[in-house]
C-alpha cells in the first residue's frame, strides 16, 4: 500500500485500490495458483484499478496526466518497481503519518491505521475514543495531507533528527497505550513490530535501535507485571523467572551495540537502565550505582521532571530514602500520580506513616488503571 500511496499521493484511492486487488487475488489465486511475487502482483493489479478509478473520476487534469504516466512501459524513474523498494515506501509512509504539521493524536491514529493495519474501530477502542470521532480524526488528517500537500518522502539528512523525534515518540506512545489499556495488549506488540521495522529501515540511527531495545526489555517483564486478579506487581516483587529471556537477550545485545557506538540518546539510555535491571537475578542484586550513573546521563539529554523523579528513586536505593525525598520534594509534578506514589513509598520507609497514607491516597485518586488504583489504596502493599 505504501507504494501506491506514493504513486498516487492520495491515500483513499490507494486504499480502495488495494482492497479491490486483494478481492481479485482471493478469487484468482486459488484457481490460477500463486504468482511468483504475490506482493508485486497486488501492487500491479491495485495500480491498474487505481488508474481505472482515476480515469472514471477525472476530477482534475493533473490527476489524469499522472494516470497516463503510470501505464506500463513508461520510463519515469519515479515509478516504483513491483519487486523494488517497498521497504522505502513504508519508511516514507511513517514519516508522512508523523509529519509535524499533524497533531500527535492524528499522527498516532494514522500510524496505527496505515502502518499497523488496525481497523478504525480497533484504533478507536485503543484510545477510548468513539468510532465516529476516530473516523473523523483520520479523515481530517488524510484531507490535510492531500490539501496541504504533505510530501511522501524520507526527510533529508539535516532534517532527519527533528523528523525522527515524532516518529519514535508515536511508537513509544503506542507501546505505552498498550501497557495502560489492558484490553489492548496487542498495541504493545504492534509498537514492537513498528520499532523493528524502523530498525530494519534505518540501521544507522542509534536512537531507533535504542527504542527497540527499550520496548523489548520492557515487554520481557509482561508476564510478571500483573497478578491473575489483575493487581500490579512492582519491579521488586516480580517473579524474574517469568521474564522472557529471549527478549532480554535481544534487548541487551542491542544495548551493547549502542554502547560501542557511543552516540548516546534518551531511548538508548532508558534501554540501558532496563538492561541493568534485567541483569539482576533479584531486586537486591541490582547494580543501582550503575543505574544512577545512567540517569545522570539521561537527565543531561532529557532534563525533564519525570526523569529527575526516576533518578531520585535510584538515588534512594544508593543513598537512602531521606536523600531521595529531598530531591523529590524539589520537583513540580503535582498532577503526575507516580510522583505521589514515590513520595508515599519514601515517607513510609522513613516511618512518616500518616504523611505516607495521604500521599498514597493522592496517588490512588489519579491512577489510570484499576490495578494501580487498588495497589495504591492498599498503601502500596500486595493484596492478601
Amino acid at each position: 500500500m505504501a507504494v501506491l500511496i506514493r504513486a498516487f499521493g492520495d491515500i483513499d484511492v490507494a486504499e480502495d485500490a488495494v482492497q479491490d486487488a486483494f478481492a481479485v487475488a482471493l478469487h484468482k489465486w486459488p484457481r490460477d495458483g500463486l504468482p511468483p511475487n504475490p506482493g508485486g502482483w497486488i501492487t500491479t493489479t491495485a495500480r491498474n484499478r487505481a488508474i481505472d478509478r482515476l480515469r472514471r473520476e477525472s476530477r482534475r487534469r493533473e490527476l489524469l496526466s499522472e494516470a497516463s504516466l503510470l501505464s506500463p512501459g513508461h520510463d519515469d524513474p519515479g515509478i516504483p518497481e513491483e519487486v523494488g523498494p517497498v521497504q522505502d515506501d513504508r519508511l516514507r509512509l511513517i514519516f508522512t503519518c508523523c509529519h509535524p504539521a499533524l497533531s500527535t493524536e492524528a499522527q498516532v491514529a494514522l500510524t496505527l491505521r496505515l502502518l499497523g493495519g488496525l481497523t478504525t474501530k480497533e484504533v478507536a477502542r485503543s484510545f477510548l475514543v468513539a468510532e465516529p470521532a476516530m473516523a473523523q480524526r483520520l479523515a481530517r488528517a488524510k484531507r490535510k495531507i492531500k490539501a496541504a500537500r504533505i510530501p511522501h518522502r524520507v526527510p533529508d539528512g539535516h532534517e532527519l533528527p527533528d523528523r525522527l523525534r515524532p516518529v519514535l515518540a508515536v511508537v513509544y506512545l503506542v507501546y505505552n497505550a498498550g501497557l495502560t489499556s489492558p484490553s489492548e495488549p496487542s498495541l504493545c506488540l504492534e509498537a514492537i513490530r513498528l520499532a523493528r521495522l524502523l530498525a530494519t529501515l534505518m540501521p544507522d540511527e542509534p536512537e531507533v535501535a535504542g527504542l527497540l531495545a527499550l520496548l523489548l526489555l520492557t515487554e520481557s517483564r509482561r508476564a510478571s507485571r500483573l497478578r491473575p486478579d489483575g493487581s500490579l506487581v512492582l519491579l521488586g516483587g516480580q517473579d524474574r523467572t517469568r521474564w522472557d529471556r529471549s527478549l532480554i537477550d535481544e534487548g541487551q545485545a542491542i544495548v551493547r551495540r549502542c554502547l560501542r557506538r557511543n552516540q548516546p540518546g534518551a531511548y538508548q539510555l532508558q534501554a540501558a537502565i532496563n538492561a541493568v535491571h534485567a541483569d539482576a537475578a533479584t531486586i537486591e542484586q541490582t547494580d543501582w550505582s550503575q543505574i544512577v550513573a545512567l540517569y545522570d546521563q539521561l537527565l543531561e539529554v532529557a532534563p525533564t521532571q519525570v526523569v529527575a523523579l526516576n533518578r531520585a528513586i535510584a538515588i534512594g536505593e544508593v543513598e537512602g530514602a531521606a536523600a531521595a525525598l529531598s530531591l523529590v520534594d524539589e520537583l513540580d509534578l503535582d498532577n503526575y500520580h507516580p510522583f505521589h506514589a514515590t513520595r508515599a513509598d519514601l515517607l513510609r520507609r522513613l516511618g512518616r506513616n500518616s504523611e505516607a497514607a495521604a500521599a498514597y491516597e493522592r496517588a490512588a485518586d489519579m491512577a489510570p488503571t484499576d490495578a494501580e488504583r487498588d495497589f495504591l489504596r492498599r498503601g502500596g502493599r500486595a493484596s492478601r
Partner: protein
Amino acid sequence: MTKYLLSVHSVEGEAREPMTEEDMRQFMERVGVLEEEMKSAGAWLFGGALHQADTATVVRMTDGEVLTTDGPFAESKEHLGGFYIIEAEDLDAALAWASKTTAAVSKPIEVRPFQHVSEA
C-alpha cells in the same frame, strides 16, 4: 506545485515596546532580503504589508441590501498584518518559507493551501 497563503498575524495590545527607527530599518531590511529570496527562487507570487486594521471597511449583504461598516471584520484582538502568496512544491517547502518569514517579522505565520486558483 501548490499555491499557499502565508498570513502574518498580530495580536492587538500585546505588550511590546514601540519600534525605534533603527528597529524599523532592520525590520525593513530583513523583509527586503526575504522577498528578494522568494523572488529569485521563483516562489513569490504576491504579497505585502497591510495598513492597520482600523483602516478597513466591511461590506456585506443584509436583508437583500449591501451594508457598509467601518472597521475590520474580526472584532477580536487578532488582526491580519500582511500576507505572501507563494508557490511551492509541497508543504515542507512552504513551511521553510514560513519559517524564514516568521524569523524576519517576529510574528506567527499561518500557512494555508489554496484550492484551485484560476489563472489570469
